[in-house]
């Protein structure tokens, strides 16, 4: 029997999803035995033209990572959707927008104005900006247009499965590969490579009743108890609303979760949920005092929507 055909592609991303894939270490040899990698720009010789030449649905499973930041990202997303039986939004950028999705707190015009004009190291008296077509003496040069806002993969094409994480951890990647190879695929639209419940359920820190008198910024408090829930110590942690799957890695080094595994099941808007959850644990009945404590949380939007702004109800700056 022919081996199933796999593809892994990166769009508006950082490469961390590929490095995470390599983190499965010697199991990469098992993957090699079980599947035929037909398109994977990061580890083998492949080209867009080769993909275009494939028949529709020829790729059995495509792991697509990265957000949709420009024309090229969109074009390849549409191409791979057409050529793949199963399309997986692999990693936080493709699933929820991730850190590049914070770009939706501004827009492409403001981004370019800063980078090409305002930044202190830029010397650009003629206000030259990158443009889609440039005529030069010898001919013409083209580059793709940057979109105004970031979108997730699911916002531009039909996605079969979502696999969150920045990046997904190696154990989960391997578990997903095993499921795919077994042929026992979950229902379409499922979130895969995750555990049920929340990061708090995976966190080994001891939890008690949460009554907070004051929030601290993580670098302003020296003696962090390595055993006790960070939220109970007044340190913002997105664990209560974040889907389990990573094994609560960030709290293992005394820093709060920032939600890279996306909203836990049943949560539609992570930022809204977190804001509500955190306000409810403030140890006061006095609205004025509550407001004072809430004000100690700097940058609530950038913290609670850290990895999921484009896929949230907020979506972008309003």
């Amino acid at each position: 029997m022919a081996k199933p055909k796999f593809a892994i592609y990166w769009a508006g991303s950082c490469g961390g999803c590929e490095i995470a894939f390599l983190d499965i270490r010697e199991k990469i040899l098992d993957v090699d035995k079980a599947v035929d990698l037909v398109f994977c720009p990061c580890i083998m010789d492949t080209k867009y033209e080769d993909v275009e030449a494939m028949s529709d649905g020829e790729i059995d499973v495509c792991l697509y990572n990265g957000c949709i930041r420009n024309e090229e990202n969109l074009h390849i997303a549409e191409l791979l959707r057409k050529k793949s039986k199963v399309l997986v939004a692999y990693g936080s950028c493709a699933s929820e927008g991730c850190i590049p999705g914070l770009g939706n707190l501004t827009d492409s015009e403001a981004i370019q104005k800063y980078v090409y004009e305002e930044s202190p190291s830029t010397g650009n008296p003629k206000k030259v900006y990158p443009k889609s077509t440039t005529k030069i003496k010898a001919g013409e040069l083209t580059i793709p247009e940057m979109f105004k806002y970031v979108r997730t993969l699911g916002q531009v094409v039909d996605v079969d499965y979502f696999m969150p994480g920045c990046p997904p951890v190696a154990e989960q990647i391997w578990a997903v590969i095993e499921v795919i190879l077994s042929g026992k695929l979950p229902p379409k639209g499922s979130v895969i490579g995750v555990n049920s419940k929340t990061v708090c359920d995976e966190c080994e820190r001891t939890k008690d009743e949460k009554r907070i008198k004051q929030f601290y910024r993580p670098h302003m408090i020296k003696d962090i108890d390595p055993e006790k829930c960070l939220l109970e110590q007044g340190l913002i942690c997105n664990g209560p609303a974040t889907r389990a799957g990573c094994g609560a890695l960030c709290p293992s080094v005394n820093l709060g979760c920032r939600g890279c595994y996306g909203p836990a099941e049943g949560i539609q808007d992570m930022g809204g949920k977190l804001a509500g959850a955190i306000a409810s644990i403030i140890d006061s009945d006095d609205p004025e005092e509550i407001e004072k404590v809430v004000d100690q949380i700097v940058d609530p939007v950038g913290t609670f929507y850290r990895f999921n702004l484009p896929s949230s109800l907020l979506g972008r700056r309003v």
Partner: protein
Amino acid sequence: MKKVTIDPITRLEGHGKIEIFLDDGGNVADAYLQIPELRGFEKFCQGRPVEEMPRITSRICGVCPEAHLMASAKACDAVYHMDIPRTAKMLRELLYNIFYVTDHTTHFYALAGPDFVVGPDAPKAQRNILGIIHKVGVEIGGKVVGMRGMCHELIKQMGGKSVHPISAIPGGMSKGMTKEEQADIIKKGEEAVEFAKFTIQFFNDIVLKNKAYVDLILSDTFTHQTYNMGLVDEKNFSNFYHGDIRVTGPDGKEYVKFKEADYLDHIEEHVEPWSYLKFPFLKNVGWKGFVDGTKSGVYKATPLSRCNVSDGMATPLANEEHDRMYKTLGGKPVHQTLATHWARIIELLYSAERWVELASDPEIIGPDFRMVPTETPDEGVGVVEAPRGTLYHHYKTDENGIIKEANLIVGTTHNNAPINMSVKKAAEGLIKNGKVNDGLLNMVEMAFRAYDPCFGCATHTLPGQMPLIIKIYDARQDLLEELRRD
């Protein structure tokens, strides 16, 4: 006018493109390398709390997140005017050198591998990580996979996560080290030193004993006489985590040495309309276009640059190898881009030795692995050597430590102009009278690979072989010839 298009160049995240224009005689008239992507971290970091910057900016690059983590944490320290405790500095530098071992290992074996280990004419099927393992044998392949795995496991232990670690924070590290961990890390560091020594021997046998490879390294096609940049310690030895920025001229003499906070006095970035990536140059020399020489502000920031600007390596075995390289290649400075591969494994040996040195220091398990800021935050610059070049993070904050402005110049960006020049020169050397041969494909590729480019850290290189299609059109845009390597 004919146009030769190389697209896609996948190890630049599939978003890089080369255009080569030929004149009527079929010789190279012009060549460009274009970077079509921008994510805009500098802008959307405005409004974020400064202490979150190490965790946010590490997402610029999943290949070298440790570099952004460290540069960002150093910039945060500077924003709060903190001189962090010695234990904190050592923990950061240790984590960083462990990262260097895995990063340089990946590049040498998996990326440079096809050219030097397997050979420039390797079968296409060998052009990936598995092909390399098959070629060099399961035992050596296992060593490489094992070394990478060991480093990533330690990064997870010290940094919280094996990709995008987070433990460097303003004031130091969020977690210290136990005595048990220390003993284990020293032991693993000694293994890393043995692995690096093995790698040097491997390079010796495969590359240096092959005259054809040595001739290729020394050929003019891969040579540009530019300025070089890199961090040096107080003795002018190479260092990845701390020191001053030293720039030497094409003649190898020191041109300037400056503190990280003064970078704006020395570096400026030029903008071209055909690429999203800017072109840094030495401000006081000036932008003279894509040319080398003393009068052009173009400089390189690569492993070879770091060797060129330093007076040597701070660890004994790496320094011995450093001396041997310069003796073999005719003294400092070396401008042959392909020698960057040699410089990279000298750095691999250095980082392994430095790993053991730092881990063995009794103070590394001390309780002072962090401090809490007491001064009002305002502005700071943090610089480290990323594997692919000097990395600058510069933040301005309000009195609450909220980012008002962030400016970043990342490793590969420094090399944007030199890489463009290298591509053009390789093309010029190979395309004559309209004749293109298969060798061009690999030669153009090798012009890139030496830089280990990671464009804007928005794009990046990973193990494998670059797929290429070269199409040659006539003046009417009719396809004359198509060369494929797939």
